[in-house]
């Protein structure tokens, strides 16, 4: 046999296989929490079912709660059984998967616990051949990031990023700060311990198939890109609407509000993918360079413009699906006089060659009429109405539905059959579900796998996070300085405050009926 064929794995050549990462130990800080139960363990289990976990990989839970390995396994079995998209539990896979689960209990503040963790990881390396590869998932509040990172470093569990024999990576969850200053401080804190290339900031929206499909649609087809500019687009609407309230997260929401919870991250991510220039390659830095350029091109909203270009709202009591529902101020753990926003709408502009002068209307909120995340691109009117019509011809709309009923719809006009030339809007619909059938991997599965493979394309980079805060912070500050809003200003189960309608109608446009 010619040994030169073995420089790479010859069995991978020409094979359409899923990617399998190198063996590693996956450490979850906050392993007794809700995120671990609802998302992380079910995602890891689903990767195991899909044969995507590497041999020897171990998962170590770390939290304050006292628990033995067996107790942790039993608790996780229940969580996976309840929250995995694959049911029922596959006993053979679970048995193998459970044998990889371990638990270390202790306070994050105590460095001795990290020595205990290090010993456990070394033992697993020796037993399973995981070669000191580490992924640390911080399923803990941002206030705990610093102490965890410092103690990881102190215990020698963070490696030089140039070390090619082993790796250490960290995955963190939003919020990445509360404003520009705190985000910058958080980044600086992380950078004291980890190199930027070792940090994976998760925004689960980027793991959604439909968001990735937006990239495929824009750059995999020749017909859209020539139209994707100010010459043809009249305006864009991005909606992230939820029909639920704060669902027991009142305490968190009081700190965050819709702007911090949705707009600064998910919604601006959608905006970036919609508006970015074609990257020279689909690699992590090329894609993220183009995304961040969009944020840098956002026209700042000055304090004087906040009144006219933004709307905030808070839901009051109303009804949803025929049942009465409480207002935000009546939710548990919410201040009865709270002025936290549960709805935001903005008119924003991108000052660049492609989109200059094209308004982007965004709205996000809780307890709206229906759950719907969508980007709609509204094209300009035809330049000349050749066909006699009562009123203008309806412009074309391309709608990219992120959730639910993921898909793409194109609205255009067609002639109504008959003797007269009457035009009417019609739609062409592409639905993921009916076209491809089945369900794809969940966002967390894709993102965890990418982190194990060391591919940060679908994770937010520090400059991206900071640029988003640079745009959002002046708005938050202007709101804080201004008079207290008169909340509540929309009833649960409606499309938000009337000011949001006025925001778009001032420009002679209207929100798309969803």
């Amino acid at each position, binding site marked *: 046999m010619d040994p030169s064929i073995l420089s790479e794995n*010859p*069995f991978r050549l020409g094979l359409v296989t899923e990617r399998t990462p190198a063996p590693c130990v996956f450490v979850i800080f906050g392993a007794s929490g809700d995120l671990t139960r609802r998302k992380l363990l079910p995602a890891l289990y689903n990767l195991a079912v899909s044969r995507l976990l590497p041999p020897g990989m171990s998962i170590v839970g770390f939290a304050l709660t006292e628990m033995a390995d067996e107790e942790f396994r039993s608790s996780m079995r229940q969580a996976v059984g309840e929250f995995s998209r694959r049911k029922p539990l596959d006993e053979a896979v679970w048995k193998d998967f459970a044998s990889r689960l371990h638990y270390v209990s202790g306070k994050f503040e105590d460095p001795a616990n990290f020595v205990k963790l290090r010993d456990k990881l070394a033992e697993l390396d020796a037993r399973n051949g995981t070669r000191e590869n580490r992924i640390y998932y911080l399923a803990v509040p941002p206030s705990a990031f610093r102490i965890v990172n410092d103690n990881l470093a102190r215990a020698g569990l963070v490696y030089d990023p140039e070390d090619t024999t082993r790796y250490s990576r960290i995955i963190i969850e939003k919020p990445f700060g509360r404003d520009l200053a705190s985000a910058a401080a958080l980044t600086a804190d992380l950078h004291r311990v980890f190199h930027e290339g070792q940090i994976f900031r998760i925004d689960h929206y980027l793991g959604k198939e439909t968001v990735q499909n937006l990239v495929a649609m824009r750059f995999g087809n020749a017909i859209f890109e020539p139209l994707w500019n100010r010459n043809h687009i009249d305006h864009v609407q991005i909606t992230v609407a939820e029909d639920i309230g704060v669902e027991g997260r009142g305490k968190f929401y009081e700190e965050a509000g819709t702007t911090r919870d949705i707009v600064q991250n998910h919604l601006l991510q959608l905006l970036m993918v919609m508006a970015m220039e074609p990257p020279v390659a689909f690699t992590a830095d090329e894609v993220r360079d183009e995304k961040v350029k969009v944020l840098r091109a956002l026209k700042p909203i000055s304090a004087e413009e906040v009144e006219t270009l933004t709307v905030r709202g808070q839901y009051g009591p109303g009804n949803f699906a025929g049942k009465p529902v409480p207002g935000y101020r009546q939710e548990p753990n919410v201040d009865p006089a709270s002025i936290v926003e549960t709805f935001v709408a903005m008119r924003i502009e991108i000052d660049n060659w492609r989109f200059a002068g094209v308004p982007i209307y965004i709205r996000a909120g809780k307890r709206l009429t229906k759950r719907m995340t969508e980007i709609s691109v509204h094209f300009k009117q035809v330049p000349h109405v050749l066909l006699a019509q009562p009123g203008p011809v309806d412009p074309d709309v391309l709608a990219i539905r992120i959730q639910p009923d993921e898909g793409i719809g194109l609205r255009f006009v067609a002639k109504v059959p008959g003797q007269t030339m009457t035009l009417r809007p019609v739609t062409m619909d592409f639905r993921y579900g009916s076209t491809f059938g089945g369900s794809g991997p969940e966002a967390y599965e894709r993102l965890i796998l990418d982190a194990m493979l060391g591919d940060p394309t679908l994770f937010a980079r520090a400059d991206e996070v900071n640029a988003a805060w640079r745009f959002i912070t002046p708005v938050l500050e202007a709101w804080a300085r201004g008079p207290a809003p008169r909340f509540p200003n929309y009833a649960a189960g409606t499309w938000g405050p009337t000011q949001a309608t006025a925001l778009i109608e001032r420009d002679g446009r209207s929100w798309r009926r969803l």
Partner: protein
Amino acid sequence: MRLSVDQVEREVARLWEEEAKRSGTARVELLTLVALVSEPPLLERVQAVVTEVVRRLPSRTIVAVWREGTAVSITADAELHHASPGGLPCGDAITLEAIGEAREWLPGNADRLALSDMPVCIWWVGDLPDHDDLFDRMVVNADVVIVNSQEMDLRDLGKLTSICTRSRGRYALADLAWARLRWVQDLVARFFDDEPARACLTGLQRIDIAFSPREGEKDAASTRSCLLLGWLVHVLKLPTDAPQWRRGDTWAEVQLGNVLTRFEQRPHRGVRPGGLVRLALECGTARFEIQRTEDPQAYQWSREVPGMQTPAQILRVLSLDEPTLLLRCLERPKRDPLLEKSLAVAWRIVRPVAPRLSNQPPGGLDL
């Protein structure tokens, strides 16, 4: 309802119009799947398979079947596929029945009924006849031609190789047996992602392949196991010029250079005929093994590489039914050079022991 072929499009349009009024469903169809049923008893199975495929990949299906008879005619049935009984429509279900010599007209009529500007996929159900120009005429306008080499014998590896050569890239060949091997290939590839494990391959001495036998299987070296070996040999560039065969009732061995491959029939509870039971590679003191467990859908994946610690892993491989395999073949209607090369290598290995063709066509067959 029996229709003439020229009534089919009108009938399909009428059915969709009715559905549009009933449910407002938009018509979405991504390809035309033509299933050629060489034996009428297979018709029911094929109808069930295409119905399931269309539920996951909205398409027009044309199931063509032929019967002996003196009345030379082709008639058709046209219905809609539904996502579930009484559910939304998801494709056109057309059946063509040719009687007697009208079989010769099937290619033209299937072509006429194919959706415009959408890929056409031909699924040849059952064994390939030794010499039959219907296959060649059917595939002229196809994008993908799907066969199942598992339903064939060793000599068919030669025919399939010849089909690939003759296609000259006009259409892609896909094989359900090859699609079924994808997970095995994945598990084998996982052995060698690490450099120390790869280095062991230079000392490869022996390959063991154990399959659950099909009923009446005469040869321990089945087409599927030989296709798997063809892939391994192609990837590792092992010599194929002088294969030395030894065969017993339930086993066969072939020596390729320094590497001995042993095929073995090994029945395993719950494993469908033809299913892989064990694959092992021996490279000096290193061993790489995939072995079915008691749970027939779970495998133990293990390797022993000096100086490397790797715990064994239990991996679930879902049972792949025919619709799933067909869908895999339809996922990517492009040529698969790896299949073509593996087939060619497999044919070079089995040629000395493959049965002869039943008779030679005029001018011989270009293999």
